[in-house]
């Protein structure tokens, strides 16, 4: 399983606005938030969650086994390393704007220690049937079911989940891969998980222009038994522009990284391509 139902989460950066706000929403949804970490604020209680100065203390006191990070970008590398050192797994990094060198170092250290990083710049992960979310997604648009979603974009994941839920297509697990150019878990790794997950019958991949992860994933998809439906954002964006997400740089002359190329490669391995987010629902109904 990507996340055990006994997951006990520590919130790094709990005393910030976003950290505190989403801690309460996650708890209300059902997630066990057992501790917060905020250097210098140790010993306090924030909305009944004990706050510690270090992750080590939080883990010793509460047996936390996963982490979600809201720490400002400048300090984030250190926070990720701190979680990895304490073997928290997964480490969900919400923060955006982390220097790419910092992310790179953290991802390699996580691989060395066999820890999964989700993000950075991710909405996180949600398992509707278990009422667990480690993330910032609006949970009411997600319903229990057997569709897995992996998305490079947060809001687009919500959009598509909302459409699915409305048509009675609930979700097993939804994972935001993170919008940064370098992230922890790749689309391929997440698809591998879905292929093995007993609760998942079909997968939605939400891609976008830039990078090669969708193309790379086609190698795995070719071997997968479960059907994959994809939506790729950015068909109507002119080449040579970069759209907000650092990940969304699109290619020029040779076609790599463009929506067109991604759609071509994915189609060639049997992926159904949705013309719009709404289309995803119809295509899914065809394949399951």
């Amino acid at each position, binding site marked *: 399983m990507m996340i055990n139902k006994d997951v006990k989460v520590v919130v790094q950066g709990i005393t910030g606005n976003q950290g505190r706000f989403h801690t309460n929403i996650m708890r209300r949804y059902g997630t066990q938030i057992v501790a917060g970490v905020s250097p210098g604020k140790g010993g306090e209680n924030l909305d009944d969650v004990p706050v510690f100065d270090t992750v080590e203390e939080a883990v010793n006191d509460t047996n936390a086994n996963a982490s979600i990070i809201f720490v400002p*970008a400048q300090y984030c590398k250190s926070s990720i390393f701190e979680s990895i050192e304490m073997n928290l797994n997964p480490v969900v990094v919400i923060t955006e704007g982390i220097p790419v060198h910092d992310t790179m170092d953290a991802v390699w250290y996580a691989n060395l220690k066999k820890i999964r990083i989700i993000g950075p710049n991710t909405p996180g992960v949600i398992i509707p049937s278990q009422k667990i979310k480690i993330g*910032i997604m*609006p949970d009411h*648009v997600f319903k229990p079911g057997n569709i897995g979603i992996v998305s490079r974009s*947060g809001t687009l994941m919500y959009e598509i989940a909302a459409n699915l839920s409305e048509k009675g297509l609930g979700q097993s697990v939804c994972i935001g891969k993170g919008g940064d150019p370098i992230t922890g878990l790749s689309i391929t790794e997440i698809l591998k998980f879905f292929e093995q997950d007993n609760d998942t019958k079909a997968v939605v991949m939400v891609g976008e222009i830039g990078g090669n992860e969708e193309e790379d994933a086609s190698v795995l998809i070719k071997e997968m038994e479960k059907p994959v439906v994809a939506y790729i954002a950015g068909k109507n964006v002119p080449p040579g522009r970069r759209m907000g*997400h650092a990940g969304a740089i699109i290619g020029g*002359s040779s076609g790599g990284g463009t929506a067109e190329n991604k759609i071509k490669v994915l189609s060639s391995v049997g992926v159904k391509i949705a013309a719009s987010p*709404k289309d995803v629902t119809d295509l899914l109904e065809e394949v399951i």
Partner: protein
Amino acid sequence: MIYSLINTKNKKLYLLDNICHYSWQIMRLYEYQAKDILSRYGIKTPKGVVTDTAEKIEFDETPSVVKAQVLVGGRGKAGGIKFADNNGEIKKTVQYLLSTSIKGEKVKKVLVEERLDIDHEFYLGITLDRDKKMPVALASAYGGMDIEDIAINSPQSIKKKYIDPLFGFWDFNARKIVKDIGIKGNDLIGVTSVLSALYTIFKEYDAELVEINPFVRTVDGRFLAADAKILIDDNSLFRHREFEEQVKMQYSDIELMTKMKNIAYVGLDGDIGIIGNGAGLVMATIDTVNLYGGNPANFCDLGGGASKDRVIDAIDIVFSNKNVKGVFINIMGGITRCDEIAKGIIEYKNTKRIDIPFVIRMVGTREDEGRKICESNGIPVISTMDEAAKMIVRLVRDNTYN
């Protein structure tokens, strides 16, 4: 362009070079700045002076080369590099270049350097392979021309060494690829230390690219960085305060304004203004509007957790494009709260006159509160992206043909 090297087999080209000047994420240093950094790390560069005026320039290393300091690519072909044989010519050339623009970029500084007696031109660089999530060192015996041309013309000539970021890049790693481009004997040790130094710079400056092209061997056997390029990750600028002012200079006013306000804006050719939260959602909104026959006028991403002030700024920016005949605001609340967005829209509406169509769709965190605020101010809220897209397309078309 450098990214093209990483996967020449698949011909995956990212035209980074074309966009870095107005990109949101990468800052490019001027040649003279890059060379200054290189020489502080022990890499030899040609003798030279940088100036922003032709008045007082005294430079004795003639014959010289006079180079416009601009950030656009293809400077040489565009006339930004000139030769001069004596002090009079230097003055005249500097004056001329300072009065011109290269590919639309005003020349503010000029670098005057000794002209090198070149025996051979190599390429040396370190860049980030985002797909492999690791740095890669690149070297080629075919320097001088654009590296993307090398990648196309003689891809085999480009030698690569991937770098485990935890292990680092050691002299013995560097030595391997320096040797692979035909550098031997005592030169091997010197050039190896240049490539090692590039990696140190790459790490210490949070670079996306550190490149010497051409890296020249002179007729008398010296090795120098004849041109240099450094691209720095904008997100790391809190560690590199010395570039704070400069990064501002590299953006247009509108870009700077949006950047400062954490809004991502890119102008497009159409007439429907698009505002949303999250790059993926905004792109999907553009795609959907297109699907129903509309023409988006821009890409405008509020980012995560926008405040009402950021919403007001975004609407302002979108309206600054006079082609805009309607606006579609599409919000999927997660870290973004719909009530904040609604407050921004209402405040904008209450302070500025909006005489063109406005379609709002919002779902997610604090959706009910947001919807209530809009509706109590007479702005209807649509539930689905498709419905909203269709509506804005219809409204703008109706408006246009009215």
